[in-house]
């Protein structure tokens, strides 16, 4: 397959002059007074604290902020010398599931070309080129629903490339991926931007993965506007303190000390020959032996699709095992059936708490304060004590100023803290967490992992499913790796 994508791409310059944007109905500007110039073909990493308007800038450049009903704009924002509009740049977003539009791989890549009126004869060669460029070697009629997260992100990238944009915008494209997925996507971006010469702007907290790809770092300040700008090494060194405070992952910096495994605590849950699956006909993982111990943390690792989440749901007593045995010991069962999946919902509350991968799945009310009271109320805890517990947790997880807010309106890090707090409110002996650090910036990461370490030291048993090696280092007393890592060729 010839890679002649380069011929057709004109790298685009970006210029912002006093540019600002305010969401309809908000008093403050999401970003304001931005002056920034990017030359054609530059590869820029955009950093800044959450709320500094990085995503807003990318959405503005891609022309997807919407019209006058959606918000107010001031100043100028130019792509290739023209005001930014839909189709002037290609944008790849964070959530792999939210970006697949059509059911077949080829049709999905062709979608963008159709939208900008590329003639049919030209579309299919472009689709094949784009799939080739991102290394997705799949038939055109392959179902998009069968792709992994990393493949979906590369598909979204291919869809963007087929439009032959002079400007490629990536909004946390690897935040939701496992390490293998991060490398897949990063390498594909590196290859295609080198070949096409397209201008690249990427927003990502995990800097180290992207350092080999970029040649300039721009840091946005909380008040809007550029606070640092220059070569990656210089900016990261000069601004290390501020960047760390803003939640940026600086290369080579350890956020928490490694954890020295503690003596084995009392067994609360143990499994022998355990097989797990969403239903009995679909066993995803079998023959597992494990013990969950008080005051210890068990980290479950392994590649995507190996059954880590299903194992977490099973250990948490939410779905029945499909084979083998999973039993609660007497100190945990406290008179209830030894099989956790047979417990009533209320019995589960004080014994095993689960933090789901997507916090939005577990929110039940319209107020942070009410959300924290759901569990204790179901346990018939007296009102005065509920109030005490809720107030303590609000302070401990820095949610006190958000007590009256709607959980859905919180930021990603705040939602994650709230989902952990809701579980702690019921004081379970065992905490099961599915990818608790997914998509979190360094600040939230350190708070969260620090909190889990403290809970472990207080005597809680922690079971954490994770692909994050740093979580394992900082937390684990024991590690269960569900599949051996592949040796790179």
């Amino acid at each position, binding site marked *: 397959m010839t890679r002649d994508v380069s011929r057709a791409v004109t790298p685009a310059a970006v210029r912002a002059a006093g540019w600002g944007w305010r969401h309809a109905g908000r008093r403050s500007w999401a970003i304001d007074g931005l002056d920034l110039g990017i030359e054609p073909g530059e590869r820029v990493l955009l950093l800044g604290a959450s709320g500094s308007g990085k995503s807003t800038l990318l*959405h503005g450049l*891609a*022309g*997807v902020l919407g019209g006058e009903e959606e918000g107010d704009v001031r100043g100028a924002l130019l792509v290739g010398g023209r005001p930014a*509009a*839909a*189709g002037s740049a*290609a*944008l*790849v*977003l964070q*959530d792999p*599931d*939210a*970006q697949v*539009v*059509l*059911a077949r791989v*080829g*049709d999905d890549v*062709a*979608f*963008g*070309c*159709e*939208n*900008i009126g590329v*003639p*049919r004869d030209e*579309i*299919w060669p472009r689709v094949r080129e784009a799939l080739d460029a991102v290394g997705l070697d799949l038939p055109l009629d392959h*179902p998009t*629903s069968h792709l992994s997260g990393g493949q979906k992100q590369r598909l*979204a990238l291919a*869809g*963007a490339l087929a*439009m032959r944009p002079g400007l490629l915008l990536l909004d946390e494209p690897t935040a939701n991926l496992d390490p293998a997925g991060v490398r897949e996507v990063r390498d594909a971006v590196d290859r295609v931007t080198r070949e096409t010469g397209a201008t690249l702007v990427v927003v990502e907290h995990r800097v180290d993965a992207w350092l080999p790809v970029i040649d300039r770092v721009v840091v946005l300040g909380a008040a809007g506007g550029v606070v640092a700008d220059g070569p990656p090494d210089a900016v990261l060194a000069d601004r290390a303190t501020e960047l760390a405070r803003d939640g940026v992952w600086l290369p080579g910096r350890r956020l928490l000390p490694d954890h020295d495994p503690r003596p084995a605590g009392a067994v609360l849950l143990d499994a022998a020959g355990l097989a797990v699956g969403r239903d009995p006909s679909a066993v995803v993982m079998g023959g597992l032996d494990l013990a969950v111990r008080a005051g210890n943390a068990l980290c479950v690792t392994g590649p995507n699709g190996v059954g880590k989440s299903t194992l977490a749901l099973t250990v948490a007593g*939410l*779905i029945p095992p499909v084979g083998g045995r999973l039993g609660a010991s007497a100190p945990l069962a406290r008179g209830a059936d030894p099989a956790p999946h047979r417990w*009533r*919902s*209320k019995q*589960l*509350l004080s014994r095993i*708490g*689960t933090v*789901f991968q*997507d916090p*939005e*799945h*577990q929110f*039940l009310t319209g107020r942070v304060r009410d959300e924290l009271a*759901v*569990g204790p109320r*179901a*346990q018939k805890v007296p009102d005065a004590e509920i109030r005490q517990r809720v107030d303590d947790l609000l302070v401990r997880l820095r949610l006190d100023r958000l007590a009256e807010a709607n959980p*859905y309106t919180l930021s990603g890090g705040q939602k994650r803290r709230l989902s952990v707090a*809701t*579980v702690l409110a*019921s004081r379970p002996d065992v905490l099961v967490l599915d990818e608790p650090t997914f998509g979190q910036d360094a600040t939230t990461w350190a708070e969260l992992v620090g909190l889990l370490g403290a809970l472990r030291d207080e005597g809680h048993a922690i079971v954490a499913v994770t692909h994050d090696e740093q979580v394992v280092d900082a937390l684990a007393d024991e590690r269960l790796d569900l599949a051996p890592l592949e040796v790179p060729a």
Partner: protein
Amino acid sequence: MSLLDARGGTTWVGRRNPVAKVAATVPLSLALLLTLDPVSAGTAIVLELLLFWAAGLGALVWSRRTAVVWIAGPLAGLSMVLYGRTGGTVYFEWGLIQVSQGSIEIGLSTAARVIAIALPAVVLFLTIDPTDFADGLSQTLRLPERFVLGALGALRLVGLFMDDWRALALARRARGVGDRWIVPRLVGQAFGLLVLSIRRGSKLATAMEARGFGAEIARSHAREVHFGGAEVVLIAIGAVVAAVCVVVAVASGSWNFILG
């Protein structure tokens, strides 16, 4: 997504323009809605079974997804047998229930009509891939692309909604509210799904716009949609089936015009 996968796509019928497949079912549906007799609907069922078998779609007629037709038809007929207008000999009476010669005839006609109308609709629809259908709607019928593609995108979210529904149920159990009565629990869960689906929908809309959807440029079409002789033949077959049913019903004297 398995819910939405097309079947029988390689057969002659399967390869026709989806718009023609839908159009082919219209004449028969209209004809059967105009009469209430067992002969026209019975003839239709016999012809449908023969034609689907000849077209290589026989397996779809008895598939799990068509089971609803075979269950709904007799159920609709049974309710007419029990509660339909009484006429002729009365065989059984209990409260409001009156089984008579007349109500049995109406019941049989109703069951046959439900099957005769629903069976081709369901079988043909099973052979339609949603993307191809959207292509047909936008290119053959020239419906506005914004709506057609918006609906197509929404359809893809159905698979995600099923995952969300499952996760919501498990989360409710984990949060201690899984022991509640089923009705309030499901209402709460449905509300949660609604909130999630609105958020998913708006994310998808942004992703579509990020790829130039809604730009002020005339869209092109990656897939060519044919509407030719074969499509006309398919619709003609549908019309002939309808005509045969009407002729047989009138000739046998059982035609029963509902407006007459």
